[in-house]
Each structure stands twice: as structure tokens, then as C-alpha cells.
């Protein structure tokens, strides 16, 4: 914090003052005594105490409805506020939900939550968790399992893979709120029929490159969670997985080698965007909107964005299912999204379960989908015409969701993800067999909580 030392050093034996004039000695120096400073200090101290008292006052509970603190990422759309208001009203005076924002970045959100939950903070009731956090939080006892009628309500009509993300050790620890999955977005003016496999897509792109047309394939290749998502999709689409079923050791193997070969092939072909190794979802979107790319593998948020930012290009902006690894075997795209969990230290767990179920009910999910751009987790909504206007691709999304893969579930997932992303990014440095071997070793260490993260 103190990032600048000061440091002028002591006196010179030379620069000696010859003493103050007699007239000044013992008299009050012009205008300045210590008096005002002391008073200022006391005033400041009182201000501090007053501020502290005021903030404490604010937290004092009234006798009325219970306040449930709901922690979620900052939502710029009105979807969350609408849901919060609706549910507070529907509770008939039992509770009011207070929407507290977390930092925008997923890492920042997790750190805030972890820090407070590890300290048994009782002021968190409901949290919006990223789908990869449940194993960690559940293992540490920070979130409550769902049982009985709450469990039944949570499971009803919910898309299976989304539910899968919230399971750990056979129990459900959160209720899926929204989800996300990637599609292939392409320029129909450059590519009349979308490719069905990765090899086709890379071949198409290379042909476009030869013809001097925009040809990049946009995908997230930066050293972050998005790269792990890409790798997870590829491995699962190749028929394998990263970890075994009870998360005790890595599986990887031949499917992983195949996945890495394709990623390496892309990185070394002219189809790769030169900024591939720094790109995240947003940069992919920007490149596509700028017209330099022909293909994009990204989440549906790019659709309304393209409509707003480049209406000209929007006319030829189409979508297709994520390309598969093996011809004829549909890809298993990694699922994302947010699940709502109840804190293990909440003082109102019963009410929190009810509130969470309300916050993610069909009506609120529909609003979030239309206004907030996040796909719902309730299956029947995908047949609801109210969704179609904003989601012309709803059928493809539902299909992708139902066939989706989840990221490896382990309490040390964060470490596993960091290890993976550091090995596969920048993608041009991948060596399929060598990288798989390193990955297996590092993941094994991570699962035993040994060693450092880079």
C-alpha cells in the first residue's frame, strides 16, 4: 500500500542556521500553534466515532420483515432488481431481499465471498455462485444442501446439466438460475453453409484466407478460465474428460491429445487471430463486429451487441451448433451460468431457500433472459413464445444445453483451472503429448493440495 518510501536524510553539518533573531524567541510564531491541530484531531476522532456509530445504527434490525442479503454480480439490466422487488412482494411481509453487488470480475466475486464465508460471516444469506464453485464451497461447509420439498422444487423442470453443476457428492447445493453456452456464429456472406466439424471450419477459414477475405476464427485463447472452458469442451467432445468421476485423479488420455492437436492446429493456421493469446469473450465479439473474422465461438450476448453496433454486418450474422470434434458426434459444449446457493451461516436459512426459489422462478428467468441476455435454466421456457423474439436461436441453445458438459468438479478446481490455462495458453505453444503429460502431473499435485500455482 505504501508504495513510495520517503527518505530525505538528515541534516548537513554545513547548513547551520545562526539562530533565530531574539525578537522571535519565546513569542508566538506568526499564526501557527499546535492548538488548532489538536482540536482538529479531536474533531476528526469524533467524526470517526460518529461515522462508526451511524453505520452500526443502520444495521440494527427492526421488528418487521427479515432482510435477506442477496449477493450477485453487478447487473446493469433491471432484471435482478425486478426479481428482487417481485419476490419481496410475494413473500407477504415475511422477508425483503436486499441486492448487494459483488465485483464485476468472477475472481473478485469469489474472493469476496470466500473471505467472508471463511470468517463465518452471518450477513450473507443468498449468493449467486459461478457454476464451478459449488464443489469448493460445499466441501468447506459454506453452503447448505437442498433437501425435501426445496430439492424437489429446484429439480422440477430444470435442465439436467445445469442441475449437474450444482451437485457435489450426490447432494444438490444450489439451484440453477441462469445458464450459458456457446454457439458457432458465422458470416453467411462469406460462408454459405456453416461447417459441422473443427477440421471443416479450419479448412473453410484457410480457403477464405487464400481468397484474401476476412477469415479469422475467434475463440478465447487468453490465459484465463475461458481457455479452460475451450479445452473442457474439446476434451468432452472428443469423448473424454479431465478428471475421473470422484475427482481423485486426472483422466485426460487420448481424447485430450486429440483435443490439443486441434487447438494447436488452429493456433498455427492462418485462421488464428493474431491476438488469440490475449483474447477473451469481449475481444472476440469486437473483432467479429469489426469485420475481420469469419467465425466466432462465443456466448449469445454477441447477438444483441452486433445488432446494436454493426447493423450492416448483422444482416449476414448467423448461428449454428458448435462444431464437433468427430464427424457425426455432436459437440459437448461446456456449460456456464449462475446458481443460487444459501449460506451455511445465514440466520434465516428457511426463508433464504424460499427466496432463492422465487428469484429463479419462471417469470423472473424470462425477464432475465429478455432484458438481461442470460439464457434460462427452466426447460419449458424454451418453448415459450415470449422468449423467441430475443432468442431466435433458442432451439440451438436448448439442444446445446441438453448435451452439455460440465467442468471438472473438485474443491481445488480453481487450482486445476489455473494449471490448465497456463499450459494451453498461448495456444501456439501447445505440444499435444507433452502438454498432456505436464497437465496430468500438475493436476495430480493440485488434487493433493501440493505445490504452488503459477
Amino acid at each position, binding site marked *: 500500500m*505504501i*508504495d513510495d518510501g520517503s527518505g530525505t536524510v*538528515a*541534516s*548537513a553539518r554545513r547548513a547551520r542556521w545562526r539562530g533565530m533573531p531574539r525578537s522571535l524567541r519565546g513569542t508566538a510564531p506568526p499564526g501557527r500553534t499546535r492548538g488548532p491541530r489538536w482540536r482538529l484531531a479531536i474533531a*476528526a476522532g469524533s467524526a470517526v466515532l460518529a*461515522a462508526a456509530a451511524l453505520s452500526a445504527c443502520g444495521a440494527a434490525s427492526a421488528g418487521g420483515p427479515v432482510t435477506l442479503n442477496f449477493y450477485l454480480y453487478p447487473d446493469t439490466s433491471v432484471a435482478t432488481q425486478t426479481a428482487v422487488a417481485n419476490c419481496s412482494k410475494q413473500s407477504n411481509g415475511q422477508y425483503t431481499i436486499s441486492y448487494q453487488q459483488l465485483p464485476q470480475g468472477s475472481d473478485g466475486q469469489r474472493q469476496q465471498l470466500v473471505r467472508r464465508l471463511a470468517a463465518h460471516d452471518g450477513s450473507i444469506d443468498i449468493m449467486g455462485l459461478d457454476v464451478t464453485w459449488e464443489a469448493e464451497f460445499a466441501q468447506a461447509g459454506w453452503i447448505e444442501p437442498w433437501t425435501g420439498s426445496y430439492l424437489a422444487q429446484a429439480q422440477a423442470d430444470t435442465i439436467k446439466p445445469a442441475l449437474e453443476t450444482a451437485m457435489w457428492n450426490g447432494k444438490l447445493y444450489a439451484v440453477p438460475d441462469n445458464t450459458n453456452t456457446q454457439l458457432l456464429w458465422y458470416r453467411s456472406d462469406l460462408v454459405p453453409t456453416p461447417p459441422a466439424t473443427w477440421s471443416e471450419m479450419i479448412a473453410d477459414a484457410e480457403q477464405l484466407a487464400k481468397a484474401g477475405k476476412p477469415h479469422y476464427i475467434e475463440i478465447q485463447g487468453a490465459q484465463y478460465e475461458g481457455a479452460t472452458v475451450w479445452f473442457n469442451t474439446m476434451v468432452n467432445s472428443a469423448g473424454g474428460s479431465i478428471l475421473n468421476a470422484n475427482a481423485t485423479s486426472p483422466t485426460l488420455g487420448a481424447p485430450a491429445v486429440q483435443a490439443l492437436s486441434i487447438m494447436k492446429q488452429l493456433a498455427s493456421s492462418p485462421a488464428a487471430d493474431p491476438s488469440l493469446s490475449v483474447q477473451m469473450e469481449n475481444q472476440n465479439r469486437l473483432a467479429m463486429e469489426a469485420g475481420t473474422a469469419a467465425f466466432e465461438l462465443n456466448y449469445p450476448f454477441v447477438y444483441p451487441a452486433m445488432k446494436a453496433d454493426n447493423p450492416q454486418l448483422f444482416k449476414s450474422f448467423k448461428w449454428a451448433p458448435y462444431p464437433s470434434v468427430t464427424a457425426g458426434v455432436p459437440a459437448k459444449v461446456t456449460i456456464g451460468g449462475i446458481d443460487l446457493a444459501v449460506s451455511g451461516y445465514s440466520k434465516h436459512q428457511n426463508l433464504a431457500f424460499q427466496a432463492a426459489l422465487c428469484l429463479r422462478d419462471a417469470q423472473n428467468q424470462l425477464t432475465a433472459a429478455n432484458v438481461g441476455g442470460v439464457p434460462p435454466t427452466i426447460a419449458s421456457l424454451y418453448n415459450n413464445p415470449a422468449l423467441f423474439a430475443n432468442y431466435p436461436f433458442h432451439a440451438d441453445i436448448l439442444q446445446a444445453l441438453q448435451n452439455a458438459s460440465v467442468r471438472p468438479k473438485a474443491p481445488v478446481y480453481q487450482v486445476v483451472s489455473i494449471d490448465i490455462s497456463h499450459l494451453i495458453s498461448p495456444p501456439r505453444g501447445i505440444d499435444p503429448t507433452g502438454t498432456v503429460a505436464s497437465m496430468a502431473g500438475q493436476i495430480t499435485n493440485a488434487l493433493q493440495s501440493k505445490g504452488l500455482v503459477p
Partner: protein
Amino acid sequence: MAVITPRQRASWTTANFVVIALAMIPVLWLLSLSFKTPAAVLDPSFWPAQWTWGNYSGILTSSQFLRPLVNSIGIGIISTVIAVVLASMAAYAIARLRFPGKTVLIGMALLIAMFPLIALVTPLFTIERALGLFNTWPGLIIPYVAFGLPLGIYTLSAFFREIPWELEKAAKMDGATPFQAFIRVIAPLATPGMVTTAILVFLACWNDFLLAISFTSTIDSRTAPAAMQYFSGGSVFTVPTGPIAAAAVVITIPIIIFVLFFQRRIVAGLTSGAVKG
């Protein structure tokens, strides 16, 4: 003052201009980014093709940023005042008086200044939660004071050492107690040093990011650098470049004004301490 030849004038003008340009270009870039529309962010030109006030109106009308700004100013000022007061007393004692344990004190201050902050965040957080200080102003003020004290003590002891002993002795001869000698003779002469120290400590508090993001959870006590982490764009994936740049400019403006008014003091303060020969 010597006559300046036109050639000298030209070369000094160039030198001045180079310094100013190098110092200001990144700031001007932030300024330019803050006026760019989300579409204009795409193009790499230095000045925006399309100008908009939207970023500023967005953050300045939102309590999510205004309140953190107020928090930053308030917490910064209170921490600075307390730290300078405590540091003055300790620095005077170090520079002037003989008492046991002086090396221990200096060693402790050095240790605190050098110990990596990241390791202290978690235990401090636990203490603050236990004491109910989490997400309050004192929850940030107390650590800021503690971490600002080493800086303050060093700077001020250098200044106090600068002040000749004779003045104090003369005052004592005239019958003043050490305390009166301090207040009436030493303190006024140490004022430039105190102002400099206050500025350094304030800037350190204003700048802090790690503690601000770790010890706050709502805008009750969140400060401006931490608030920038909570801005969001149109979707979960969009990085709100415009609002972040606008926020960065807004939290820099007070510093620019501050520096503008105090640059004489800052430079005078740092150069009135002579170097040990």
C-alpha cells in the same frame, strides 16, 4: 538573473515540453477513452471519433461511484491527520530526545513498511470482523494510519533533525518547558515537513487498493479505486472501458488540483531537508 539567449530559451522550452508531454500523455489517453462511445473504443486513434458525455453522466449520477468518492476523501483526510499527529510526536522524540528502545521502534517501523501486505490481509480481516469494524470507516482508517506511520516517522524525523538544536535550547533557557518549546519554536519550523508528510500519507491512502477491496463490502465504506472493480458493461463479458476510464479521470482530478496548489510545498518540503554530508 542571467540573460537568456534565444537558443537557451528554445532548448529550455523543448525540455519543459518534453517533460510535460511524457508526464501527461497516459493521462490524456485516459481522458480520451472516457469520452469514447462503446463503438469508438474499438478504434485505436488517440482522440475519439465520436464524443460522448455518457460515461461521465453514468458514473456521476450513480451513488455507486459518488459515495465511494466521498469515502475516499473522508477516510484519506482522517487517516492523514491522525497519522501526521502521531508521527510528529514520535519523530520529534526520535530526532531530539534520548530514551531507551529507540532502535526497537525504528526497527518495528521498518518491519511494518517492508512486510508484504498480502499476507496481512486475511488475519486483519478476521480481527476486523470480530471487532465489528468490517465495512466501516474506522475499519480502513486504523490500518491506513498504522501503515502510514513508518512513512510519516521517517520523513518527519529527517525534518526535525534539520532544525537546529540551539533554538530549542534558547527557548528552554528562556524558561519554556520542552512541550512549550516544541509548540512555539519547533512546530512552526517543521510545518513544511508536516505538510509534505501529510501529502505523502494522503496519496498513499488514496492509492490503496488491496485493503479497500478486502475490508469493504458495500458502498458504506468502499473507496474509489475499489469501486472501479464494480463497474459492469452491457453483459457479463463486456469490459466497461468507458466508465472505468471516466472513473479513473474523476479520481485523478482531485490529485491534479491538490498537486497544483501544493507543488510549491511538496518541492519546498522535500528540498528543505539537506543531504547528509
